[in-house]
């Protein structure tokens, strides 16, 4: 939030129009992307904020890499849900936000903008480093989002989740609601989200250790900290890369580990282990371009230029 102006949340669907995420109160989750100062300054200096600026850009897009005193480029993508009936606000990082829905003729959608309290349910942090020109991608979630597929199989379910109804036995999992998608009208079909087991044991064990350490530190600062209700899912990094902010041209994505990584609030419908189509931060973002078709250094932010 900047001053007294609430955050503005607009995007109601997940990447590549795979679908919206509908919570148990039938409200659409909203998504946003933020960039840090280093990324902002690079975009500004190279006029990459506009289509005209991108057209005039003749170089290779390369955001600053962190190392030594330099922080480097960082971007954050976040998913928020409207806090409503049955939600415990003490378990969420929450903000007041203006939720804007753009008008549309097909499907018919009335423009609206309402102020609501929203809770953070998931976020990615991407950080470009000298030792990782493909960026390092960490993804986090609120702990009440959804059960693992193994929990569903064994029946070890919690009483309540943000995006899963334990009493619905016939709800198909990880399916977007039928169209039309109208973000400012309660949907009939809450998403029945299940986390698909895709992480190797090495990644799971590492995240578990990191979470235990971080949650103990947070509890030490304040037993009421909402951040104790968030957890690292995993971090994807290139296993084969250079140390000078460059990549091997024959292996531009650097063979990421873990091979697949997704956040159930941000990649609900593309969880899996199929190369080139299941969620993998680096492999997906490696395809990102500007409006000109020129690669945009692992960010889709620049394709929004007007």
């Amino acid at each position, binding site marked *: 939030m900047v001053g007294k102006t609430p955050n503005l949340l607009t995007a109601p669907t997940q990447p590549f129009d795979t679908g919206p995420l509908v919570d148990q109160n039938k409200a659409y989750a909203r998504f946003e992307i933020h960039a840090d100062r280093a990324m902002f300054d690079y975009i500004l200096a190279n006029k990459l904020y506009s289509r005209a600026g991108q057209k005039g850009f003749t170089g290779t897009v390369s955001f600053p890499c962190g190392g030594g005193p330099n922080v480097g480029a960082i971007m954050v993508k976040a998913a928020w849900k409207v806090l409503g009936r049955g939600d415990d606000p003490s378990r969420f990082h929450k903000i007041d936000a203006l939720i804007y829905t753009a008008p549309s003729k097909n499907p018919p959608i009335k423009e609206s903008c309402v102020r609501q309290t929203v809770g953070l349910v998931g976020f990615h942090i991407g950080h470009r480093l000298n030792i990782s020109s493909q960026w390092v991608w960490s993804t986090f979630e609120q702990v009440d989002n959804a059960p693992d597929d193994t929990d569903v199989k064994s029946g070890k379910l919690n009483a309540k989740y943000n995006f899963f109804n334990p009493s619905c036995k016939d709800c198909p999992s990880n399916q977007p609601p039928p169209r039309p998608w109208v973000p400012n009208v309660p949907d009939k079909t809450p998403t029945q989200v299940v986390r698909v087991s895709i992480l190797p044991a090495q990644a799971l064990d590492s995240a578990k250790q990191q979470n235990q350490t971080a949650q103990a530190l947070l509890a030490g600062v304040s037993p009421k900290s909402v951040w104790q209700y968030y957890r690292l899912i995993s971090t994807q990094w290139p296993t084969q890369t250079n140390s000078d902010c460059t990549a091997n041209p024959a*292996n531009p994505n650097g063979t990421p580990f873990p*091979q697949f990584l997704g956040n159930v609030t941000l990649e609900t419908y593309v969880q899996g282990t199929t190369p080139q189509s299941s969620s993998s931060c680096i492999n997906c973002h490696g395809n990102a371009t500007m409006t000109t078709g020129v690669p945009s250094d692992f960010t889709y932010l620049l394709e929004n230029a007007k």
Partner: protein
Amino acid sequence: MSDDATRQTNFANMSAVLTGFTTDVVNPLFDPLQLVPTYLATADAKGGAALVDTLIQQFLSLTAGGASKQQIADTMLDTGNPTPGNQALLARAIVKTWYLGSWYSSPTDNSPTVVSQNAYIGGLAWKAMQAHPMGFSDFTFGYWVTPPPSLADFGVDLPPGGQNA
């Protein structure tokens, strides 16, 4: 290092020499695709662990004797012999698996088994062609308008003179 780990390392080093790729490519320090253990298990299952061990011993013996990589490969693959023995056939099958991601049970096998999806996308044939697997590419949009990266970038173990030697 355990016996299993040593055996796996020896198999990886042997595979690098037989395929002509660097050890960094065949057996990277950290391998998300896990091709070495997958191919070793495949060779054990299809060719027999005893024969795989014999092959590894032949490799270690030739290496200890100071043979060049080319000499080792020629000897183990029995290059030029149209009717090689089982040991050389196994060496050839292992090379084919590294290149094509499929196991050929014999030189005339027309329906090889695809080992795994990672074996397919990790096939060395794509690197030798300076290309990418059909249906899977790590290259950025528009890569096709520029010359491909060099064979060295793809991890081919080039002679001292380089790509054009």
